[in-house]
């Protein structure tokens, strides 16, 4: 009987460990078990600021994908950002614009997409033609000072 109680205790202990891991995965890291089908679109930016891989891609503030790769385009000498957009978001017209925005004053960088008016839609492998780079604080201050002086 004592051995049985001990075995139950050990079983419960190991089970508690597994449940704890599961809760950490789901509640703390927000792990999504179902992998969403995505398609890839690209955009070139003059300056990506602090954008990183796994940054969010949003439209009207709603999450529609994430940044999957960032590299330097040697021909255009610009940053080439690869985005994975959820499959059900298939209504991004080809004249949509992508801009790098900041969440809050000092928060993380993300990409905001604004849909255009064309009837044709972006397919896997297409490029955003209209892009807007990240706002770099130093540039902004520089411009401001320059204006002050020229006045």
């Amino acid at each position, binding site marked *: 009987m004592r051995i049985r109680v001990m075995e139950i205790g050990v079983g419960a202990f190991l089970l508690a460990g597994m449940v704890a891991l599961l809760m*950490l995965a789901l509640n703390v890291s927000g792990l999504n078990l179902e992998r969403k089908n995505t398609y890839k679109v690209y955009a070139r930016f003059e300056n990506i600021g602090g954008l990183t891989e796994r940054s969010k891609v949003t439209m009207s503030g709603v999450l529609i994908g994430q940044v999957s790769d960032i590299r330097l385009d040697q021909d255009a000498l610009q940053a080439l950002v690869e985005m994975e957009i959820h499959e059900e978001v298939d209504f991004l017209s080809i004249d949509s614009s992508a801009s790098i925005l900041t969440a809050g004053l000092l928060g993380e960088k993300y990409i905001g997409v604004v849909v255009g008016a064309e009837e044709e839609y972006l397919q896997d492998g297409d490029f955003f033609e209209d892009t807007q780079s990240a706002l770099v604080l130093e540039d902004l201050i520089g411009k401001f000072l320059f204006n002050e002086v020229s006045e």
Partner: protein
Amino acid sequence: MLDLVARLGHKGLKKLEAFGSAGVILMQALVARPQPFTMLPLVVKQIHFVGVLSLIIIVVSGLFIGMVLGLQGYTILVDYGSEQAVGQMVALSLVRELAPVVTALLFAGRAGSALTAEIGLMKATEQLSSLEMIGVDPLRRIIAPRFWAGFICLPVLATIFSLVGIMGGALVGIDWLGIYEGSFWSNMQNSVDFREDILNGLIKAVVFGFVVTWIAVFQGYDCVPTSEGISDATTKTVVYSSLSVLALDFVLTALMFGDL
């Protein structure tokens, strides 16, 4: 002068020899013909002893560490108006660092020292040699189950520690200090990555479990079979495991998060 050098060399060789024999003992205990039916009940008994009975100290310290992190984080972050980031801070510091390290330190004190003392006393009362006399390999009968139990228990305990700590942080942050619940959890979920943070923390715990139990069973098996020897071995277990856990933690952190 030469004497001094010789003594240093002697000491160095002694240490190296101990390290080697620790490896040999481990190998002999683990790389044997597996006997799941005799082994399993022994391992279960040891898991009960080192794991289930350590649960209380782990849960209590996890809760308090999480609560302290929440409190400290809040008082600093509220100055910058970003107190929602408390959740992120508590979760990341627990999952990546504190849970594996503090669990390993507590484990060395609670279970490692007990393992050493138990095996050491078995040796002193010649139970180990009597086992050998009746044809039972003490390495497999005594050392192997204890090693496996420690190896299994530490990651489980560390996971529970993380979870309880985060609960403690949430308790202080949300219920007492009034951080908005939604931003507390969503900030946490945005910044904690399952593979990067949680699995890496778990790998740390596995490594620490291996090292702490290895040191504990070796010190017990290798001790001088007197009462002084046992007390010496128990002290060594706690000191060596704590030092190697802290040093290994730096190495693992540099490899995992340091972009080296």
